[in-house]
Each structure stands twice: as C-alpha cells, then as structure tokens.
C-alpha cells in the first residue's frame, strides 16, 4: 500500500468513526458556540460592543475548539488497545501521522466552518468579501494547530492526565500562530492595505510548513515501541 493511500485509509477510518458516533463533533460544535456566548455575556453591553471583541473571540474560540478536537484523536485509539493494532499494521509511522493529521484537520475545519458564520452573526462582523480572507487565515491556522497538536496529543495520551497536559503543552506552541492569525484578522477586518497583514500570513504559512515537516519527522519517534 502506498504511503498516501495508507494515510488516506487511516484518515477515512477516523472520520467514519466520528461520523457514526457524531458525539465528539456535536460536542465540539456546541462547545465552540458556548465559548462565543461566554464572550457575549462576560462583557458590559453598555461599554463594549461585540464587534470590538470579534477578532480576539474568533481566535480564542477556534484555538479552544481545536484543543477539544485533538484530545479525542488518540483517546479513541487507547480503548481496547486499538493503538497497538494500528502500530502492527504494515504502514509507515509517517503515513500514520499524515492519516491522523488529515482526520484531525477535517474535524477541526468542520467545527470552524460551523462556528465561523455564527461568529459573524453574533459579533456583528460586516459580511464583506474580506471575510473570505479571514476564513483563509482560519484554514491556514488550523493546518498548523493540528500539525503540532497531533504530535503532542500522541504523547499526552500515554499519561493519565491527557486532557490536562494537552492544553498545557500545546498552547505555548499555538501562541505564535494565534498572534499571527489575530494580527492578520484585525487588519483585514479594518480593510487595511495588504502590505500590513501579508507579513503575518507569510509567518503563518511558514509555521505550517516547518511544523508539518518537523512533525512528520518526529512522530515516528513518538510512536516507537
């Protein structure tokens, strides 16, 4: 089996399990909506307009929803020793990473795709063409978030404190891309010239590329038995 087909088979397996249960997906979407609501209700409506908070809220919501999604990625495999079965399968560890990463990315993008229009609606963001650019930034950020997150969640799942350790270890890695994504979002929404936000997008793209390559190289070390 070629490496690409193996990765697609693993991603397909994960997504099929998600689709059959839908518990994780529904929970992640509801969680994202709840985070949006928390921001609406945790402010003084008289002094702070939702629109002023919009860029920050978007990135807090997407980062937290990603954390929730990544937590389940390997917990699924821990039950009934499924991970051992996966490691015994005649596929390379790199394919295993790509399969897991693709499934995580698809999962996160679905959650993002539902949360994004709700964010536009709840926070009174102008529905202009610039929103497509912000959506593009969200896709770029999701690629980096999940590349790092897949590797880290494969490690934290080996401990009894997986749910606690994942955010503690992952968030420091997510802060540079969050800074870049939020920096770009603010400027795009204010219709600033491209020169002012393109640097952030380039940084985000570089982060994705570097950490995808690094994670492909390091994941086999994590999975060594």
């Amino acid at each position, binding site marked *: 089996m070629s490496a690409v087909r193996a990765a697609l088979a693993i991603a397909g397996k994960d997504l099929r399990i998600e689709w059959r249960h839908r518990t994780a997906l529904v929970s992640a979407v509801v969680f994202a909506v709840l985070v949006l609501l928390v921001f609406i209700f945790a402010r003084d409506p008289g002094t702070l307009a939702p629109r002023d908070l919009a860029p920050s809220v978007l990135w807090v919501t997407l980062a937290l929803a990603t954390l929730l999604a990544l937590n389940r990625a390997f917990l699924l495999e821990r039950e009934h020793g499924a991970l051992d079965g996966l490691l015994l399968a005649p596929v390379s560890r790199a394919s295993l990473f790509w399969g897991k990463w693709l499934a995580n990315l698809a999962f996160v993008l679905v959650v993002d795709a539902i949360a994004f229009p709700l964010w536009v609606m709840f926070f009174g963001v102008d529905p202009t063409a610039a929103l497509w650019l912000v959506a593009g930034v969200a896709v770029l950020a999701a690629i980096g978030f999940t590349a*790092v997150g897949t*590797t*880290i969640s494969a*490690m*934290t799942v*080996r*401990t*009894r*404190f997986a749910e606690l*350790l994942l955010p*503690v*270890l992952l*968030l*420091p*890695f997510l*802060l*540079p891309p969050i*800074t*870049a994504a939020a*920096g770009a979002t603010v400027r795009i929404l204010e219709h600033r010239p491209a020169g002012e936000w393109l*640097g*952030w997008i380039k*940084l985000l793209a*570089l*982060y994705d590329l*570097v*950490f995808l390559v*690094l994670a492909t190289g*390091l994941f086999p*070390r*994590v999975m*060594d038995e």
Partner: protein
Amino acid sequence: MNAAVDRATAIIRRGRVITVVALMMLAGIYVLSLGLTPAERAQGLAFKILYVHAPSAWAAEMAFVLVGVVGILYFWLNDPRLDLFAEASAEVGMVFGTLILTTGPIWARPIWGVWWAWDPRLTFTLLLYLLFAGYFALRSALHDPVERARFGAVIGIMGLVLVPFIHLTVYLFQSQHPLPVLGRPPCPPGHPDCAPSLPWVLLKPLLLSFATFTLLYIGFVTTRYGIGLRRQLAEEAEHA
C-alpha cells in the same frame, strides 16, 4: 554499582566547586556594578538590574536551546545520559527564567511606570518558561524512563524550532523593549541607533556578568546532572 555512585558523587562535588566559584564572581559583580560603576544617565539606579537581567536571559536561552540540541543528539546516539543532561539544563533554565521574569517587572515599574507592559520579549520569555513548565509536567506524568527521554527530546526539538518563530513574532509585534546592547541586528552605518550602545565603563561589568552567569549555568547543570545520575542509579537498584 558503587563505582557508578562514586562517579555521580564526584560529578556533584565538581558541580558544587564550579558553583561556589561562580557565586564568588557574582558577589564581585555586585560590588563592581553597585559600588564602582556610575549610574546610567537616563535610567539611574534602575539600570543596574541589567547586570542580572540580561545575563539571566542569556543563560536561560542557552539552557533551553541546549535541551533541543541534546534532543537531536539523543535520537542520534540513543544515550540516556543525554536525557539526564537535558533534564538538568531545562531545570536550570527555569531558574534563570524565574530571574528574568522577576527582574524584568522590577525594572519596568520605575522606567515604564507599570510592572507588566506586555512587552513581547518579556511575554515570550514567559511563553518559553511555560513551555518548559509543560515539559516537566509531561516528564513527571510518564513512568517509563525510555519514553520520558524520547518525549522529552521531542518537546525539546519542537521548542528549539519554535524559538525563531517567537523571535519573528517579537519583531513583527510592536516592541517597547530596549534594543539589545549586544548582538543587535545590523543597521545602516551612521544611524544613531548604531552608535556604540554602551560606554565601556558600563559595558565591562555586563561582559563580566555574562561570563559569570555562563559559569553559574555550568555549575548548576553539572550538580543537577550528578543528582539525576545518582537518582537514576537508586531507581535501578530498587528495581534490580
């Protein structure tokens, strides 16, 4: 086994000797910078905190970078001693990180008027600090020493790759942190910012302080490495 324990004890002793020498040098730095160096014109006495703050930043960054470098070596050589060194270096890095994060606000209060200004450089030191706090949380949650070493090396390498991104974000983010006095990015000749950044009388204690903190790092890490080695031997004896 006894010979190995003796070797570990000898390493600890060597580490302590280096640490004592470094601490005596540190006392000399205090005397030199507080008593024999004039106050800086603009910042006054607050400037003197630089003699602890900047070398701590150097030692902490060196400590964290070495954790990553040793992580790469670990995957290459598969030597468990490298993991002991990484653990020691990370722990010592946390000590120097604590120094940066306390001296930074103490300096910022009289100069900027606030304890914490969300200055990117201090913020990202905090970030690196938290990353290594996570590193220790993960290590303590793992019982298998081989797994602990492997995962430690992975986080160390990922942290090492994250450092340039942290620096890039710092420079893209608007900063009010003073420009580095050593190793600052090149700028066009004749530009006022390119002028010799610090007069020799103020620079000399700083350079001595950098040397002292490097020695302090070596002393701390050698001691901590020896302690780690002895702890590992005790664990092995328990399981035998």
